[in-house]
Structure formats: C-alpha cells, structure tokens
C-alpha cells in the first residue's frame, strides 16, 4: 500500500458514499425523532387502558411468578436509585428522610398488609444522576436484589430510561421523584409519580392568581431548555389563551448550569408585570438575584421544585414575596411546630439521621413519600406487585400522610393518573424566613392531563 499517494479514486468514492449516507441519516433521524411519536395507539392522560378484569393493572403479559418477588418471611425489600456522589449528590438528602421514616416504621412494628405485619428494607444504589447508570442499577435491583418494587427513583430521564424494563417485568416504579407529566402516559401503567405537584398545574394556579390580582398583566418567562421548561411554557400558553394576560418574551437557559444572568437581563428589559421562573436547582436563586440586580420587581413565580430553605436563602433579599406551590407542610415554618405530624417527623429524623437538616424541605419530602408508600402498602388487599400497583393506581383519598397539608387528599383513578393534584399556593417572606399560604388549598384533581404537552405525555 502506498501511503504517500493514495489514489484519487480510492479516496473519493467511499467518502462520497459516506457523506450521502450521513446526510440521509441525519435527515431521517431529524424527521423521525419528533414526529413519529404520533402513532400512539392509546391516547394518554385522560383515556384509560382498562384490563379485561376491569382493573387498571393487567398482569396477563407479565413473566410467570413475578407477582410475589421481594417478600421473604416478614420483610419487604424495595429498591431506589438516586445520585449519592458526583455533582448532584445533594439529592441524597431525600434518602435520609426516607430511611428515617422506614426506621421509625420498622421500630414501631412495621406495616400491616392484609392482616400481617412486615418490616421494610430499602436498598439504595448510586447513579450519579446518569440515566444509563440508573438502568444498570435497576436491572441489578430487579434481578439480583429481587426487590418487590422500586421506590422514589430520582429524575425524569432516569425514570424514562427504565420505563420499558419496569413495564415488561411488571415491577412497580412507585412514587417517582419528579413532577413531570410523562408519568401520565397510559402505555406505562407500572409507573406512578409521587406527591410532587405536576408542573403544568403550577401554571394553572399562578395564572388564576394573576387573573385576580392583575387581569391584564404582561409576563416574562425563563425556562429550562428541556422537557421541564417545555411543561411550564405550554401550560402557561394554554392557561392564558382567552384572557387579557400576555407573554412578552421567553428566554431559555442550559439546565446543566445555573448561569441565567444574560437571559434575565433581557427579560428585565421588557419591564413585564410578572416573571415566571420555570427553572430548577441553583438557577432559581440565580434568576431571583439577577432580577433584583436589574431593579425589576415583577410579581414573581418560581417552580415548586425550588422551594427549599437553601434555594430560597440563596436568593437573599430577592426571594422576598416570591410565589410558588407546595404539596407539603413547610418544616421551617414555626407555625407548624405544634402539629403532631411535624413533631413526629422532627423527633424521628433527629433520632435516625442526626446529620440531616430537619428544616430542609427535601428531607421532609423523603419522609412524606416513604409514609405514602407505607400507606399504599397498608391499603393493598394482598401483598403482590399487581395488587399494590392497582391500589396505588386507584388510591381513594389518602389524607394525613407524612407532612401532607391538612385538608389535602391524594387520589388516583383509572381516569386520573396523577397523584399530587392537591396543593397550596405559597409566598416566601424573607423577614420571617419561611413560606406562608396564599388563599385556601387548591384541588385540581383530574386536571393535569388536559394541560400537559402531548409530545411529552405520549412521547
């Protein structure tokens, strides 16, 4: 082979072919990627896929003998996957809340299912927030650890990456730690979101608030450049249709970072009356600070995922009067200190996880979600995967669970696949250092699916 002078023919022909292929594939992929998904057989959300037995959960295609895996003697083994190391390790505070609850529950005798008491054993695996690591973790939990169910696996993409696995293996993927609308996809009955408020409902609540407060307000929107931000944007657009409210400008930012300074500068220049922050993690306080620096003081709404002591604190003075939603009691609010549910939480988290910060909402979320899981187990007529999943899918008004708001009731049904539709609009006060409720509890049961972007719901 003569390397110094490759013959022209040998060099160019394969190259041309490769280039053609490349172009063809890119076009095919681009066309296919977003539009192909419309060939779904069952409409998502509102529609229901009822099993022949009249139940939501159909076990006819499940692997034989899979229904009772994960229960040995009086122990139920469940598994979770979440970031415990790496850049997103702060999420591991959820695990502290969960472990405190299960330790407390086990110490007080365990959970009673169909007349028998069981201890709950939670096996956690670290995925560093990396979806492919979640896949191998979950496969190992199902095949090696032989868990009964997956519980509160963190992250939207992480759960989407395992949805085919859990659905064909018939393993409950319960109380997913994400308020995304994708858990309403009726093709995947083995997945259920947790009590987190579905993102589109936040916009519903805020637009109602705005209509009463300033009916012809102009709005500026900051959104994460992903499905999360899309949920806020589309719900906001749907909600303001036919009102005098108007979106002046939308800016998106890279959700893997928290640098939103330039975006907010641009939005501030519109001098809009209201500012919606469809962002998450540190981008929320960054947006609040940029807003303050611009001397812009609109009515500000911030994603419910950002309601935590730390993120609100990081906004300094600029967090004052910011509006958001919560499905739970604020552990930082001294007014809740006398509430017996709060006292139970405080005592047990201090006892079992002394390093956890009890005032941190993310710990309270872990505690409450664990309590909800125990409640679902308790209500299940039998200790099988299908019975527990069926119970969760047709939950009839769970109240007083963990740090659930008083008057709130969490329900699902064959027609309603979303759990966290009872919530409270709240406003933060810097001088008090905690949030205060605005108005009364909002009950949006059954309203999520209609507000959800269909590309996400059925995609």
């Amino acid at each position: 082979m003569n390397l110094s002078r490759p013959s022209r023919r040998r060099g160019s022909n394969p190259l041309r072919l490769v280039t053609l292929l490349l172009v063809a594939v890119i076009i095919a992929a681009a066309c296919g990627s977003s539009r192909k998904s419309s060939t779904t057989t069952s409409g998502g959300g509102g529609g229901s896929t009822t099993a022949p037995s009249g139940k939501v959960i159909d076990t006819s295609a499940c692997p034989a003998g899979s229904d009772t895996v994960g229960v040995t003697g009086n122990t139920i083994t469940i598994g979770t996957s979440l970031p415990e190391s790496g850049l997103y390790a702060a999420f591991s505070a959820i695990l502290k809340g969960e472990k405190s609850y299960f330790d407390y529950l086990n110490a007080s005798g365990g959970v009673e299912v169909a007349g028998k008491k069981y201890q709950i054993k939670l096996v956690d695996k670290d995925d560093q927030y990396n979806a492919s690591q979640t896949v191998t973790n979950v496969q190992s939990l199902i095949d090696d650890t032989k868990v009964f169910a997956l519980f509160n696996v963190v992250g939207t993409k992480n759960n989407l990456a395992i949805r085919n696995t859990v659905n064909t293996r018939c393993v409950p993927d319960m109380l997913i730690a994400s308020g995304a609308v994708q858990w309403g996809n009726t093709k995947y009955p083995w997945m259920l979101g947790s009590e987190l408020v579905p993102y589109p409902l936040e916009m519903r609540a805020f637009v109602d608030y705005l209509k009463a407060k300033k009916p012809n307000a102009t709005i500026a929107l900051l959104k994460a450049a992903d499905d999360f931000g899309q949920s806020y944007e589309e719900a906001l657009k749907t909600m303001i249709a036919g009102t005098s409210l108007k979106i002046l400008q939308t800016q998106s930012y890279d959700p893997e970072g928290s640098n939103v300074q330039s975006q907010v500068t641009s939005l501030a220049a519109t001098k809009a009356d209201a500012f919606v922050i469809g962002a998450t993690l540190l981008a929320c306080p960054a947006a609040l600070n940029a807003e303050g620096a611009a001397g812009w003081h609109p009515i500000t709404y911030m994603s419910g995922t950002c309601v935590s002591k730390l993120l609100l604190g990081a906004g300094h003075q600029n967090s004052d009067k910011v509006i958001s939603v919560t499905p739970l009691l604020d552990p930082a609010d001294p007014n809740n200190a006398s509430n017996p549910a709060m006292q139970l939480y405080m005592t047990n988290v201090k006892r079992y996880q002394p390093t956890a910060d009890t005032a941190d909402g993310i710990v309270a979320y872990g505690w409450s979600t664990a309590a909800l899981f125990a409640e679902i187990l308790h209500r299940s007529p039998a200790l099988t995967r299908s019975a527990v999943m069926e119970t969760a899918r047709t939950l009839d008004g769970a109240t007083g669970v963990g740090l659930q708001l008083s008057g709130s009731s969490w329900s699902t049904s064959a027609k309603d696949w979303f759990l966290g539709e009872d919530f409270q609009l709240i406003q933060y006060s810097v001088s008090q250092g905690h949030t205060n409720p605005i108005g009364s509890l909002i009950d949006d049961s059954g309203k999520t699916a209609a507000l959800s972007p269909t590309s996400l719901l059925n995609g």
Partner: protein
Amino acid sequence: MSLFLTQLMNGIGNGAVYASLALALVLIFRTTGILNFAQGEMALYSTYLVWFFTDRNFPVWIAILLAMAISFVGGALIERVVIRPVEKASPLVLVIVTIGMFLAINSITQVQFGSDAKQLPRAYPGKTWLPGNVQISADTLVLVGVLVLECVVLYLILQRTKLGLAVRAVASNPESSSLLGIPVGTMLMLGWAFAAALGALAGALAVPASQPALSAASMQSILVFSFAAAALGGFDSTLGAVVGGLIVGVTQSLTTQYIHALSDIVLVVPLGLILLVLLIRPSGLFGSRRVERV
C-alpha cells in the same frame, strides 16, 4: 443601547471569572508545562475553606487570606507528593494524574464539607447602580479589579523578581537551570503553590459574585470556559488568558440576547470562534509558537 451595554457588562463579569481561573491554568502551564485538569477543583476546595472559616465567624477577608495561605501550602504539597513522582513520565501520564486529582478533590470536598450548597458571603457590599439604565454591579467591578490586580502581581513576580526569573528559567530548561544552581524542585513547588493560592482568591471572589451559592458544581461550570479562554488566548500567555476570557464571556451574553435560535446551544458560538482562531493561529491569539507538548 442600554440593554446592549448591560449585556456587555454581564459578559465582562462572566469573562473576568473565566479569565481568573484561566490565569491559574496558564501559571501552572508556564512554570511546569502541565495542563492541570484539577485546577478548578483545587480552587473549589479552597473556596470551601473560605466558607468553612466564614461559617466559624471569621471576617471574610481574613477567611480568604487563611484559605490562600493553606492553598499555597497545599499546592506545594501536591506538586511534591503527587506530581514529582511522575514528572519524568510521559505527558499523557500527567494528564491522567491531574484527572485523578480532578475526581478525588471534588469528592473529598463533598465528603468533608457536605454535598449541600453553601452560602458564601461577599467580601464587599453587593450593590448595583443603574446610570442611564445600564446595570453596573459591584460584583463586575470587583471581578475586573481583582483580575487586573492578579495580572499585575503575576507580571511583577514573574518578570521583575529574581524568583520569577528562576521560575521561568526552570520552565524553559530544567537541566541548564539546575546546572546554574537554581533549585528546580523548589521552583516547581512554588509554581503550584502560587497557582493554588491564586485559585483560592479567584474562587472566593468569583463564586459569590457570579453564583447564588457554593456547590460541588461551582467550578466545573467555569472550568470549561476557562479552558476555552486559555486555548483562545494562547496557553502560555497571561494577557491571552484575560483577553480570551473576556471574549468568551461577551460572546456568550451577546448571543443570548441577540441570536434567539441559538439560545439553548449558546456554546456553539465561543467554541466555533476558538476553532476558527486556532485554525488561523494554532497557538492561540497571544501564544508563542513552540507549545507542542502533551
């Protein structure tokens, strides 16, 4: 117009942050010929030290000085313990060692100080002025001021002192320097020590000025742009790091404001710019031509 100027200020503020870390990269590169992937994480640890002291009620400036002193010693120790054993190995091995440190230091920081984000106070009052609707914040002024100060100090030390001369001599030719009686090992340690202390100062000022809180991701989001800045400016040029940092910062914020189609892939612009510059000048805008190590 005021919007344009405000975005320009935003870009300069961000650019100053990128540049200050890029300066530390350049310093290590000029004194030891190593591309230090762990530079950002070393600065992260130093910044957590600042938080540690302020959390124990030390005044911010004292905390920064303490953290700089500890980082100075730590930087020297890292050179002596981690880098020295492999300094004669292939450059690829050195890349792996700094990648090992990159992983280790981030994780050690989280284990020692906790994974939750921290509130790091500013060392000065965080004010904003709005002359003619142009937004000028104390943060931007301080960042630019510190950047200028860093450049001046580095210049004076490297170009105007015997010590600097020795450091530069070692960097360009270790064997002959050693024959001249320059303690080569000590000079290399000093290079790392200065870079670590510089990183501590940069982190302590840049994090509260540009981020709402200090977290394990604080430096990784900056480091990529600092690398870009150093590549753009030329990896062995102090001036290049500064100019490169400012160019990256300003293109970023102007792209966000004026090119809507790219708003979710803003990175395309600075990276495209770098590729273009490197194609025309393979050693960056201000780099000298002989840089062909690694």
